[in-house]
Structures are given as structure tokens and as C-alpha cells.
């Protein structure tokens, strides 16, 4: 769907099998070139990020000359009520839309994976669409929709929109998990005397929990990172953090932006680490 959305949670279900060919390990010219390109690409990906983080500690107001270490930009950050407001908005929107899309998306995945019904393929296609279409289209269509129904733009419109684009990702993640789910476990529980609700509570839910947590992390990240859609459906007093950052960048680069970007980078880092650790633990089972 979008530029800043991790569409694929890849490899999380597959156990890593070492199938490396012996010959591939031998140092050859091809391998040397491969390593060189790989290292260059990693550098390309990381140097701008690292430089940005470094300069968030630079005491120079303008320019790219190092003038000494400072924490003053962070200090200003945490004393700027507009930033704190935007961060709070982001957090509220992300938490509420994560909770809603995890519930809605999981229920839908259950229905789609476990039953056969009419127009199922239509729903399947419809659930894929928000993932595929560019977020700019989703942003403006929601803008037009809210204008048409005269719903004032604010936190409500933000949450509605975020659920609309997070939910399909939850759905797809949970559907993959449910496809792997061994249904004989539920039958075994019922066979041992557990009714439907007890089976769900004692067996299904605990076993789906890793999937639910990782899809929640995905939804949370998507919501927290979204700029384009939020940009179109946000109101005057309900700016999210990315929308606020965008406004600041448009007004010119300041060290505060570097600092707030660094904070967001750290947040992403924490979220990735969490989901990575979760995957490692799940695949270790």
C-alpha cells in the first residue's frame, strides 16, 4: 500500500534451514563482488540514519559542521507542548486503532479461514485492496468521504482511517497463522470435555497469541508511522507526530527535527527488536 508500511512479515513462519552450498563459501571473485555490493547497500541504507542521529547531538544551529556535543535539542523537544501534544495524539490513535484492528481483523481471518461461504473470494479481494492501492488514493478518498458526510476531521477520523488500513494487515497475518493452526488441537479439547468457549479460551487463544502480538506490533507501527493518510484526514488540533514533523521539515531543517527523528528511530528500533525477539521465540518452539 504505502511507502512507509512494512507489507511483508516474511520468514517469520519458516524455520531457517541451513542449505548453504559448500562451494558458495569458497572465496571467489563472484563472492567478493557480491560482498562488496552488499556492504555498499547496507552502508547506503544506514549512513544517512547514523549521520542524522549524530547531528541531533551537534550544537550548531545550522550547517553540517560539527561544533560540539549537546543535548539541548532533546531538552527543547521535551519542553515543546506542540510536540508532546502530537506525540500524545499519535499514541492515542495508534493504541485505539491497533486494538480495534486486531479484534476486527482476527475475527475476519477466523471466518475467512475456517468457513466456506458465498462471495468469499470477493471479500478476499476486498481485503487485499487496501494493501495494494497507493496510500495517497486512500488518503484523498477518505478526505472526500469525511467531507461528504460532514464529519469534522480530528482524532475520530484519524482512528477510523487507521483502522481501515491496519485491519487488512492484521487480517493477512492472522489468516496465515490460522492456516497453520492445527485444528485437531481444538477437537482434542472438545473431546476432553471443553465446550466451545473453554476451547477458545484455553487452547485457541493462547496458541494464537504470538500471532496476535506480532500483528498488533505491525498495526501499531503502521499507525505510528503513517504520514500520507493522516495528512489528509487530520484536523487542526489533532496533528500526529509524523504530520507535525512534516510541517517542520517544510519550514526548514532544524536540529530539533534531527532530535525528534532520532527519538522515532529509537522507537522503531525497539518495536523491531520486540517483534524480532518474538519471532525467534516462536520459531524456536
Amino acid at each position: 500500500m504505502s511507502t512507509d508500511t512494512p507489507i511483508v512479515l516474511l520468514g517469520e513462519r519458516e524455520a531457517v534451514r541451513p542449505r548453504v552450498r559448500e562451494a558458495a563459501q569458497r572465496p571467489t571473485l563472484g563472492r567478493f563482488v557480491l560482498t562488496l555490493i552488499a556492504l555498499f547497500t547496507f552502508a547506503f541504507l544506514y549512513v544517512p540514519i547514523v549521520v542524522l542521529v549524530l547531528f541531533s547531538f551537534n550544537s550548531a544551529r545550522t550547517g553540517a559542521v560539527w561544533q560540539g556535543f549537546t543535548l539541548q535539542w532533546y531538552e527543547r523537544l521535551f519542553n515543546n507542548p506542540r510536540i508532546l501534544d502530537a506525540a500524545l495524539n499519535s499514541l492515542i490513535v495508534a493504541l485505539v486503532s491497533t486494538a480495534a484492528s486486531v479484534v476486527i481483523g482476527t475475527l475476519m481471518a477466523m471466518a475467512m479461514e475456517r468457513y466456506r461461504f458465498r462471495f468469499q473470494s470477493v471479500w478476499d479481494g476486498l481485503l487485499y485492496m487496501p494493501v495494494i492501492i497507493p496510500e495517497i488514493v486512500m488518503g484523498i478518498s477518505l478526505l472526500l468521504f469525511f467531507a461528504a458526510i460532514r464529519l469534522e476531521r480530528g482524532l475520530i477520523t484519524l482512528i477510523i482511517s487507521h483502522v481501515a488500513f491496519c485491519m487488512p494487515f492484521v487480517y493477512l497475518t492472522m489468516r496465515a497463522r490460522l492456516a497453520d493452526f492445527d485444528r485437531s488441537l481444538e477437537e482434542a479439547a472438545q473431546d476432553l470435555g471443553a465446550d466451545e468457549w473453554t476451547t477458545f479460551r484455553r487452547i485457541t487463544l493462547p496458541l494464537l497469541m504470538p500471532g496476535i502480538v506480532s500483528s498488533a506490533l505491525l498495526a501499531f507501527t503502521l499507525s505510528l508511522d503513517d504520514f500520507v493518510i493522516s495528512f489528509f484526514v487530520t484536523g487542526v488540533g489533532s496533528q500526529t507526530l509524523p504530520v507535525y514533523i512534516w510541517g517542520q521539515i517544510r519550514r526548514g531543517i532544524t536540529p530539533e527535527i534531527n532530535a525528534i527523528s532520532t527519538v522515532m528511530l529509537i522507537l522503531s528500533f525497539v518495536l523491531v527488536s520486540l517483534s524480532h525477539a518474538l519471532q525467534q521465540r516462536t520459531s524456536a518452539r
Partner: protein
Amino acid sequence: MMQALREHPSLRVAALMAPGAFWLLLFFLAPLTIMGVISFLSRDAQGFPTPPYTLENYLTIVRDIRFAPSLSFEGGLHVRLFEGLYLDLLWRSIWLSLLSTLLTLLLAFPVALFMAQLPRRYRNLALFAVMIPFWTNFLVRTYALQFMLRANGPINTLLRALGLPPLELIFTPTAVMIGLVYGNLPFMILPLYTSLEKFDWTMMEAAHDLGADTWRAFTRVMLPLISPGLVAGSILTFVPAIGSYITVDLMGGGRTNLIGYSIAQQFSASVNWPFGSALALVMMVIVTIAAVLYFRSARGTQRVLI
């Protein structure tokens, strides 16, 4: 109630589907429909939609087309056969998006291959290193790149310190191309890596054993087997590229116009909602074609895009 739900699976389906279906229909399909309707409306003095219905918005896109083949350099080699204001925009968008997809692939494939051949311990580390930019805020990452390439950014500062002339890096078509590749690299590496990681290398040995040289083993055995990852990565790169707004603005300064950016313009700088809706619909058609191609080629094989 439990009894009723147990007896009637259709009731269970309805109960499970209801919230999601409601949300999708009301907050996804309805907005798109409204957008479609508005694309056939006229604009009032402020640029907002108003009756009567008209095809004008679509006609504007195809108006004044001339046959004028040309070659130029805009962030990459640019070939044109026809000329026309919005046709140029569409063609440039598709062309540059394809080009950026190809460039991204050229960088991502060696990385994915390199990663897939690492010993297991390092492989997880490398995967983690790709996951971080994958999950990191796109705006922040693009901003970081803009910061690097600015007129008085670190690169030019370094050049000046070395007594070299500064480079005009930012706000050029090339900067947009670099931005697209930079932004979308993780979306290409990950699906490719997933396919390659599952690839059974003894297949290549089998191909060599049967007399295929490296190139033919690659094209006849490896490529078909990793094509799901290849196609998924390409879609994940192409779609955001053609719809890109942040990159076009931050890296190109709005000077290299792509359709996604142009659409946004109709809703902010120059207000023309009906025309913006029409452009958005055209872009959806392009993206849908790409998506259909994806599902075609991924049919029968395992989908990598979740």
C-alpha cells in the same frame, strides 16, 4: 445463543465477518466510490466538486497529445514517443517507477543473495539489519537522506573541506531516483531474501550436473523458483514509487512531478478535487493492472506478499 451459533455455521460466519465487513464497506469502499463519482463532477470557483456531471476531467488528461519522440535524462534515461501535459506526467510516473524498481532490484538481489549464503547466526543479524529500515518511519528515513544530500549537508561540507566544488545533489530528478531506491530497498530485499533463503542450492548443483552453465542454471532453475519473491518485491517497490509523495517533495522539491504528488497537489496547493479524483482513479487502474499481473504470476506458487 451458543446453541444457535453451534447449529448454524452461517450465523457464526455473519457474527465473525460483521465488524470487518462493516468497516471495509463504509470506510474503504464507500470513500473510493465517492471519489469515483466526484471524478465525473465539475469544479466550482474554489475547486470543490459541483454538478453537472462531465467527462472534462478525463478529457483534460488526454488532451493535446502530439507525436514527438524524444530522449532525455531525468533521473535516468527517459524515452518518449508522444507529448502532452498529463500524458507526460503519466508516462514519466510509470517510467521512473519502473526504472527505480529495476535499480532497486539490481541493488537488492546481491544483498539478498549475500544474506542467504551467510552462516545462520550472521544471517539473523543481517535480517535484523534489514528489518530496522523496513519498519522505520519512511518520512524520517527520507528526511535523513535529504539531510545528507542538502546543499550545505554533510556530503557537501566534506567536499568543501577537501577543497572540492560542492555538488548539486538535492532537488533534482536524480535525487528523486536515489530517494525512491533508498526508500524502497528494504521492501525489495525482504521478499527476495525469503525466496532465496528457502531456495535449495542442490538444485543448482543438479542443473550443473545436467550440463547447464551458471547463466542457464540461474535463468532456468533459480529464477523460476524465486520468482514469487521477485514479483512481490517488485510490486512492493513499484506501487509506492508511482504513488510517492514524500520522496517527490523532499528529494525533488516538487520539481520532478509524479502522479501521486500531482494528485496531492489538487487537494492542497491548487484545489481541484474533481480533477484530483480523476487522476487518482487513473493511478488506481495502473496499480490494479500491476497487482493483477502479480497475482497471475504468483498463482500456483506460494505468495510471498504475506
